[in-house]
């Protein structure tokens, strides 16, 4: 018997894993999930009499899960810092990042411009589609770190804002 904590969208769930000869039972208090292996990474999973087809694979401190086409990524709290640096820049509304590497095809603001939340700031092309990056808050353009045609990664802000109070 094994007690494991996981973070699911901010909620901590404690899973108790029991293994029998051909299957697993994972309990959360009085809720029990049954899992039967169906080959590499595949499981038939049952909860409350409903059966699902699931897959799970672990990589770099995350568990990637598919349950009847629902996709989840669950962090292993034991390996929390592995991903480092990534995970989006959600908290930093004053910096505009490209969320995936690409090429700047159009800058839609200039230094000093006043911008509003949801205003388009820059168009980045990736995977053959043009994608528009929006401001997440009202503010003023403080710095533009790249020009049109430049390649950008996800770690350096393209644009920096001075946010309104």
């Amino acid at each position: 018997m094994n007690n494991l904590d996981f973070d699911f969208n901010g909620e901590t769930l404690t899973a108790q894993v029991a293994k029998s000869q051909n299957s697993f039972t994972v309990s959360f208090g009085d809720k029990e999930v049954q899992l039967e292996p169906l080959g590499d990474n595949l499981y038939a999973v049952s909860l409350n009499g409903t059966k699902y087809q699931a897959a799970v694979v672990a990589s770099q401190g995350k568990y990637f899960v598919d349950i009847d086409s629902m996709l989840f990524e669950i962090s292993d709290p034991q390996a929390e810092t592995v991903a480092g640096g990534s995970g989006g820049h959600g908290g930093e509304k004053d910096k505009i990042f490209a969320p995936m590497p690409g090429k700047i095809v159009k800058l839609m603001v200039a230094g000093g411009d006043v911008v509003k939340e949801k205003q388009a700031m820059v168009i980045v092309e990736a995977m053959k589609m043009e994608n528009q990056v929006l401001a997440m808050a009202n503010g003023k353009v403080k710095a533009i770190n790249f020009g049109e045609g430049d390649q950008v990664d996800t770690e350096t802000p393209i644009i920096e804002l001075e946010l309104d109070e």
Partner: protein
Amino acid sequence: MSKNIQKILIANRSEIAVRVINACQAMGIKSVAVYSDADENAKHKMLADEAVHIGEATPQKSYLDIEKIINAAKETNADAIHPGYGFLAENRLLAERCLEENIIFIGPSSDAINLLGNKVESRIIMADAGIPLIPGMKKSETDIEVYKKAADDCGYPVMVKAAAGGGGKGMRVVHTAEEIKDAVEAAKREAKNAFNDDRVYLEKYIVNPRHIEFQILADTHGNTIHLFERECSIQRRHQKIIEETPSVAMTDELRTRMGADAVRVAQAADYVSAGTVEFLLDESGHYYFLEMNTRIQVEHPITEMVTSVDLVIEQIKIAQGESIEHLKNIRQSGHAIECRIYAEDGENNFMPSIGQILHYSEPSGPGVRVDSGVQKGTDVTIDYDPIMAKLVVHAPSREIAISKMIQALHQFKILGVKTSKKFMVDILLHDKFISGETYTDFIEKYMSDRKDLADEYKELAVALAAVSASSGTASNSSTQTSDKIATPWQLLGAIQIGDSIHE
């Protein structure tokens, strides 16, 4: 007078390259793959009999470089080139270079590509041939005022389209005069990037249309036939994601008329090979010619399922000079659906998702077909279209095909990148889909307020993580994952997701 092809170079990548390799193997023809730096490890490269490296990841420096393709063919003594779809498939220059080098181009003549690839010229020819057309501009212009005037003439909404277009690239729907300039500019940039041709025009936008297309085969003996329709109305960002045949909107009478017009379109262009004639069908049963795609189409498998015709094999046979006489009595049997499996997040505006595939397993069984370009370990990069695979089902009825597809989507497991599987399941389960109200705005209209069911799955999801963790294979996968998911990010096309039309 037929010439047997010995070796085909496939000027493409991913699932369509694998599809053509399959056809080669079935016909006893040798296959040559080409690959860029990004595809060192790609499935199509490994499955072909030979593989030639053609340059950097950037398409312009590899898959779009005609001379590199031609040289690879000469170097490997390939006597034919199959262009797949996308990339050079509708580039008349490749067809011309093939002709010069005495290599068989498995596709139409460069004249036909040229005519049909230019939406403006082809509209003129088709109007003369009596094919119904959507009102609008006849050609690309430099003066933005001409676009505004044309839009006023048609009445809003109007659609801006790339003259050399396809795949949703270079398309914009415009609702007011103020939006025209931005839309035309964006469409030009996208068109330039995608097709190296920035000509765009504008036409009336049909409200509540269905996208209906007819598969055409034409040989060098004067036979031109259609292999019935496909309905491809379920689109996101103007790109098809679910296709089916037959269309629920089709009657025998309408099918006969549209099919005959589709054949006339092909004949008017002196078309040879496989091609697709696209129409919009409005609610009152009027239809309008959109364009003819001069290539094998992404969604060709559903036609194969209901007709038992292998379209790629027929393409190759036609290129060898064989006749399609034997296909004249073809019929439709049952119902087929295709779901495109893109590396994109169906729960977040179809944002492209990159990363390494950590787990990959396909469904199988009666009536299930998978055409795939990826495998475990494949890196899905930013360089190319995010299509990974196509899932196709065939069943006696539409109702059963829908259930079968839902089951197959559940069984198709791809981990490491996001997909739209759940989004497509929700479409297939939707009352309006089931009742056949499949207009091109389906996704915008019915899929914008999907419930977030994540919470109901929390114990299941964590149970799987827990079993994986306690199985001691806690890090049973690999390297290089880097799918960082976006925050202040919105897809341009997504502003009007699904509010219209085409391929």
